[in-house]
């Protein structure tokens, strides 16, 4: 094993993760969550057309591979005159993807809050929108942390697909170094290790967040 290569490549790879993988995942997740809430609300709407739109979106996102979604945006869209830079394009694709998956989580979490909470909000004078914001969503958040953490951790790893559309994130760096040095096994294993590190830290963060949100629940 070429220890010198590992030492030399570690920092470039980690930097690729810190300046590529993590920001890409964070931005996409933040936007994706907002999208997920909107789609969940569409699906929960009593209006049949709105509910159908939400359902169709989720079906489309979940029913097509992420890689195909990326290629449609990057290599398909230019043919109809829409050209996106790698970074904004990747963020759009990833957040739309997260939006589809997380919408189902958010919807289930909202439905898990007892109906009596909506009624209590109503009787103290709140509009449904205010009840949602102040009463329902904080309780739904607690329920949705574990499944949303899952989505986020998947997303961190899925960002490696962005290397195929020329975003310089960690895996793209790894490919460059591997091609240059021809040490494919070493470099790809090293990259895998760093992904694993990231995800371990995120899992710890999930535990901490769950503990924090559990403080008002009986044990």
């Amino acid at each position, binding site marked *: 094993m070429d220890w010198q290569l590992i030492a030399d490549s570690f920092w470039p790879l980690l930097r690729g993760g810190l300046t590529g993988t993590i920001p890409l995942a964070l931005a996409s997740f933040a936007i994706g969550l907002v999208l997920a809430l909107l789609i969940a609300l569409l699906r929960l709407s009593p209006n049949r057309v709105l509910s159908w739109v939400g359902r169709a979106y989720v079906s489309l996102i979940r029913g097509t591979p992420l890689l195909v979604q990326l290629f449609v945006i990057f290599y398909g869209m230019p043919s109809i005159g829409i050209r996106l830079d790698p970074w904004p394009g990747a963020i759009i694709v990833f957040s739309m993807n997260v939006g589809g998956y997380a919408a189902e989580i958010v919807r289930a979490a909202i439905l898990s809050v*007892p109906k*009596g*909470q909506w*009624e*209590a909000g*109503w*009787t*103290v*004078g*709140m509009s449904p929108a*205010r009840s949602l914001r*102040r*009463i329902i969503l*904080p*309780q739904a958040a*607690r329920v949705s942390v574990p499944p949303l953490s899952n989505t986020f951790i998947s997303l961190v790893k899925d960002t490696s697909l962005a290397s195929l559309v020329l975003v310089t994130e960690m895996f793209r760096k790894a490919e460059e170094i591997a091609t240059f040095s021809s040490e494919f096994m070493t470099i790809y294993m090293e990259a895998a290790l760093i992904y694993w590190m990231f995800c371990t830290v995120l899992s710890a963060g999930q535990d901490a967040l769950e503990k924090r949100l559990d*403080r*008002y*629940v*009986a044990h």
Partner: protein
Amino acid sequence: MSPTDRIAVPPPGPRSGTLLTARGIQKSFGANHVLRGVDLEVRRGEVVALIGPSGSGKTTVLRSLNGLETPDAGLLDLDGGPVVDFGAQAAAVGTRSWAGRRAGARLAKLNRAALRDRSAMVFQHHNLFPHRTVLENVIEGPTQVQQIPRETAIGEAEGLLARVGLADKRDAYPHELSGGQQQRVGIVRALALQPDLLLFDEPTSALDPELVGEVLTVMKELADEGWTMVVVTHELQFARQVATEVLFLDGGVVVERGAPAQIFSNPAEERTRRFLDRILHPLD
């Protein structure tokens, strides 16, 4: 009783006269005709108790009074507010034209809010907000909806909590309280809204028997202080002692109504007699 002994003073306004009149309230859930024309009159400062077997419609009547249920027909007149005609409203919501339906929906929304803003409700399962402390539960309505300054609302909430013996629980979360304490917070949350009408939906049915007393005591004090209350209850003893009028419902109609002494000692209707017998002498 001196003013300082009070739990809370009812909001200013007339102290007598009719507060609420309901006429011919009807409601169906699908094929289930739950209310078949219920009349109800509540005078200021009085306590109306709704009793009856489960499924009799008493809770639906109560929930119709603050917009949690929307009746299909009937009139509701809350003194000083608009007379809500549920039949007309249902017809408007059901019109064919899009504009008509929108107008109907807007009317329904206004009507619900008009009813809701005059009343407050205490639920069977307290429905406190679990992610907020006792104090935050109480000031949520005043600060978020009624735009009362936070400091004022906190002062009033602390006063109310002290009156029901929960001053030291202000920063506790609901799950840290006993059932009776939770329900007393539920009552305080309702009082903090300064409603004209207090609605109680079986407030002691979900409690352990030894905790029922502390909640009924608070309710009795509120009745003595002149709050107007409508109470759905299985506590016949409480209804007998505290209510000004008792309504016995069965099958979606008011079978019998009258002063508690008359209803409990000398019911006119056979159905009332049988119901009371079943509750008071379950082993016979």
